């Protein structure tokens, strides 16, 4: 179920600023308090897909350790997509809450 929302979660992880794959996964783990325990590699197809869709941009940098690193940033379209997905998720989760509450409310 999480996989269907992974793209939105990745977009949200980049909202604070540009980051590389490892940092994105760490952010997701921290925010979910370990609940989203996906294999770390899962984030790369999502990053690539979002970049192909124009929602992210990326560039190589070389930090002090000398290893090449790819840094991802949200594009304007990515910010708009994130806001849209947040709204859609809000509507969906509210509907599920209502359905699960049944006759208790």
């Amino acid at each position, binding site marked *: 179920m999480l996989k269907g929302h992974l793209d939105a979660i990745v977009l949200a992880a980049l909202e604070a600023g540009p980051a590389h794959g490892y940092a994105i996964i760490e952010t997701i783990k921290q925010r979910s308090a370990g609940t989203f325990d996906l294999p*770390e590699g899962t984030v*790369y197809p999502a990053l690539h897909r979002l970049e192909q869709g124009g929602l992210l941009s990326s560039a190589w940098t070389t930090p002090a350790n000398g290893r090449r690193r790819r840094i991802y940033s949200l594009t304007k379209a990515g910010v708009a997509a994130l806001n849209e997905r947040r709204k859609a998720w809000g509507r969906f989760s509210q509907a599920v809450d209502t359905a699960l509450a049944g006759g208790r409310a």
Partner: protein
Amino acid sequence: MTRAIDDYVATLRRELDFDRALADRLASEVEDHLREAAEADPAWPSPEAERCAVERFGLGREIAAEFAADAIDRQARRTWITLAVTVAVTFVAMRLRVIWLDDGAGPDLAPLIDRYAFVAALTVGVVAWFAFRRSLAAFAICLGGLVASIGAGIVRADLFANGAPLHVLLSAAGEIALVGVLAFHVIGLGRRLRRTAELRRVGR
């Protein structure tokens, strides 16, 4: 020290052999990720830290299968665009040949093949667009129909035997080039579909 990270990256690069540029890019990215993860492990520096980083990253085949599935969508889109352009150009060139050249110089069968192979390619293309967007068979039939139509058009107009004007030869060369590009995309799509199926089969 083991070479868990080096081995993993080399394997992943092999799994992504359907797209060399992607394989090179991802190999660098994944190596950076795994080394950073290993260095953050309390057991670093040790073979165990590398092994744990690789384990947390997940199976290379499953990651490659996801990339391959995404690549199919992109390749199918490219193939559709090329197909649409080739059909349009073939149609225009077919009509222009009728205007430019005296019809009926070639064998009797050629006009029929020219027309009906094109119509067949167009029909299959339209049906496939609505029903099977990623069907290799549909693309192959369209490609076959266009090759037959263009070939018959060339035979029909007797282009090479009678020394046709340059603009007629150029339009035929344009059609042939476009069909070549289409064939390249169809073969690429076939390769990606086969690779994805292999990766998913072994990954299970």
